[in-house]
């Protein structure tokens, strides 16, 4: 589904990402871990064509992302709060995204019904603009919006940070359901080793822009990661 070749990003003379080759097959839950500055967000930004690669290419479902915009209809992402439109209410925001993805209001209302538990009565129908919601609730809205319209590729940067424990648990379930019938490919990054090992089938460890580990998740993965990071 996603294929990066000879991909690198340099700022000045400083290489922040260098991936000779990485392939994420369709339907995989793919986890990216690494300390600050490892290049996780850079990779996602490259994948979304928000920054230009210094060398190499990323291909998303046969489409080279910086050559054509045709990857947009089947790709969704939530990187940070700058993906929210502060002066809209959450409903209006969902309808807007829905409209861009060819869903009408009724579709969205049905879609939102399944997240009632996550929203916990704090998001919908509150007569509040997104900018006035708490950080955690903003994040919930952003993540849910990224799931609108059954995108084939979903990119979430640090989805668990800022979320309350209940939502973290529910989000894990939602993410594993998404790839169950291998419809969607999910890419997430996280600093929480426990969560990624639970959710992801495959985990890649980045360090200063290089891939240092590429693991298929198993019983030992969490231990292995912990020992790697506890240097």
């Amino acid at each position, binding site marked *: 589904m996603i294929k990066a070749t000879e991909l690198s990003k340099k700022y000045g003379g400083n290489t922040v990402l260098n991936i000779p080759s990485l392939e994420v097959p369709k339907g995989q839950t793919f986890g990216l871990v690494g300390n600050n500055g490892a290049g996780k967000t850079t990779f996602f930004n490259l994948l979304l064509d928000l920054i230009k690669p210094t060398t190499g290419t990323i291909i998303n479902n046969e489409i080279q992302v910086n050559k054509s915009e045709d990857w*947009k209809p089947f790709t969704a*992402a939530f990187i940070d709060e700058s993906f929210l439109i502060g002066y809209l209410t959450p409903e209006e925001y969902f309808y807007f995204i829905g409209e861009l*993805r060819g869903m009408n209001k009724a579709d969205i209302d049905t879609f939102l019904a399944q997240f009632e538990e996550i929203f916990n009565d704090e998001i919908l129908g509150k007569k509040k603009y997104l900018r006035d919601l708490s950080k955690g609730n903003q994040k919930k809205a952003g993540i849910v919006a990224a799931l609108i319209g059954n995108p084939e590729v979903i990119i979430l940067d640090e989805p668990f940070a800022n979320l309350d424990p209940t939502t973290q648990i529910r989000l894990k379930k939602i993410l594993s359901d998404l790839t169950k019938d291998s419809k969607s490919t999910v890419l997430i990054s996280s600093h929480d080793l426990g969560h990624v090992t639970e959710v992801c089938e495959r985990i890649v460890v980045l360090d200063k822009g290089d891939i240092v580990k590429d693991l298929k998740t198993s019983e030992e993965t969490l231990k292995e990661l912990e020992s790697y990071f506890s240097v």
Partner: protein
Amino acid sequence: MIKHFINFEWKQFFRSSYWQKSIGLNILLGFFALYMIASFLILGVAIYPLLKQKYPESDPLIIVNGFLFYWFLSDLLMRFFLQKLPVMNVKPFLILPLKRRKIVNYILQKSAISFFNFLPLFAVIPFGVILIFEDYSTTTAVVWMLTMILFSLIINFVNFIIESKSAETELSFLPIIVLASVLFGLNYFEIISFSTLVASAMNAIIENPILIIVPILVLVSVYATNFSILKKKLYVDASLKAKTEIANSSTMEWTKKFGSIAPFLQLDLKLLLRNKRPRSSIFILAIGLLYGLFFYPQKIYIEQEWLYVFVGTFVTGIFMINFGQFIPAWDSGYYKLLMSQNIKYKEYLNSKYSLMIMVSILMFVLSIPYVYFGWKILVVHFAALIYNLGVNVYVLLFAGSFNRKKIDLTQRAAFNYQGTGAVQWLVGFPLLLVPVGIFLLPYFTLGFEAGVATLIILGVIGIVFHQKLMNIITKKYLQSKHKMINAFDQNN
């Protein structure tokens, strides 16, 4: 500590991506400043001999004092539109071991060294020096100059009080316009003659220098008022955090008629209605519409037919200039979302285009009553509308692709009352003056009809090539996409 503050602001200014992209604009501002300085200097040097020549039997100083009221009033107006209370991001400093007093004093005192306080000196000092050479006592001249400086500072701080009050009420320009018109009106119809009041106050101070204590006390009290207003705002829950508004949801079903651009149109309308800063572009419509009343009722202006072009472009283009020059910065807060969503750039730009032309046409329709002052006005306004629709709108959209300055709609930057400064008005000048220039050449050689026709033809050419022009503009936006994302990501 002050040293650090100054250092931070210096860095903030020069390290922002805005600075690096807008050297041209800064140079333009520099020229504008030089022009103002030169004008004031000439005024200061020339006024005494001029008055002496025209009214040999009156005392020039007394005549000048008689006009001080207008001087102060226009000074206040100019400051309101051009001067901003120095912005500083105070949140990081609040928990540092620093007295709040110190932060506020710094902000206020910094404003005292603004260009707008030095500008009057260029007229005041030459005039004062001439007074000394012309047989006035040195005390008189010095006291007069000192009083003028004091008044300048008073106006400086009064302006900030008005700015902060009008920012709270969200009426934008309305309070200052009303205040200035009322003062002017009362004075003009001699209900209360402020010019006489100001003049006699000034004369009294000159005769009795000890009275200079009065403006000093006034200055202290306006400073104190500013101090207490600002100090109250120095709490995270007061102004740093935006007030929670009750949201009103609306679906704006009527926009559906516009097809594929409907979602963006809705977004733009909500942007305009729900955020303080773009909302001022709506208030400015009223000012734009009434702008003609400034010129047309007066005989000297109505005879100048080229002036209709200026007013017409202004009236029909005011929204375009105000809103258009910040495309796409209005959306800078969520630009990454727009860029990664299922959005075609062309539709996004087309929605902005549609909004601007709709408002322009609306403004033209509303300005039809100006026909009262002559049918030629209506004709020229129509030509100006076509020119705006065919030329200016594309210029603005194209210029937008060079936009690198983020607009913070949520207003976390404390004390950012208007968010508009001299720069914004400067950008408008070429858009308003170029059509006047275009009109003038055929007007003087071939006559009125030729001037009007030239404007209309240029506009029609633009409208006919709409698709082509939009393609070029879209391409330009696509080219600068990554630069814009990067710039909008920065906070200052």
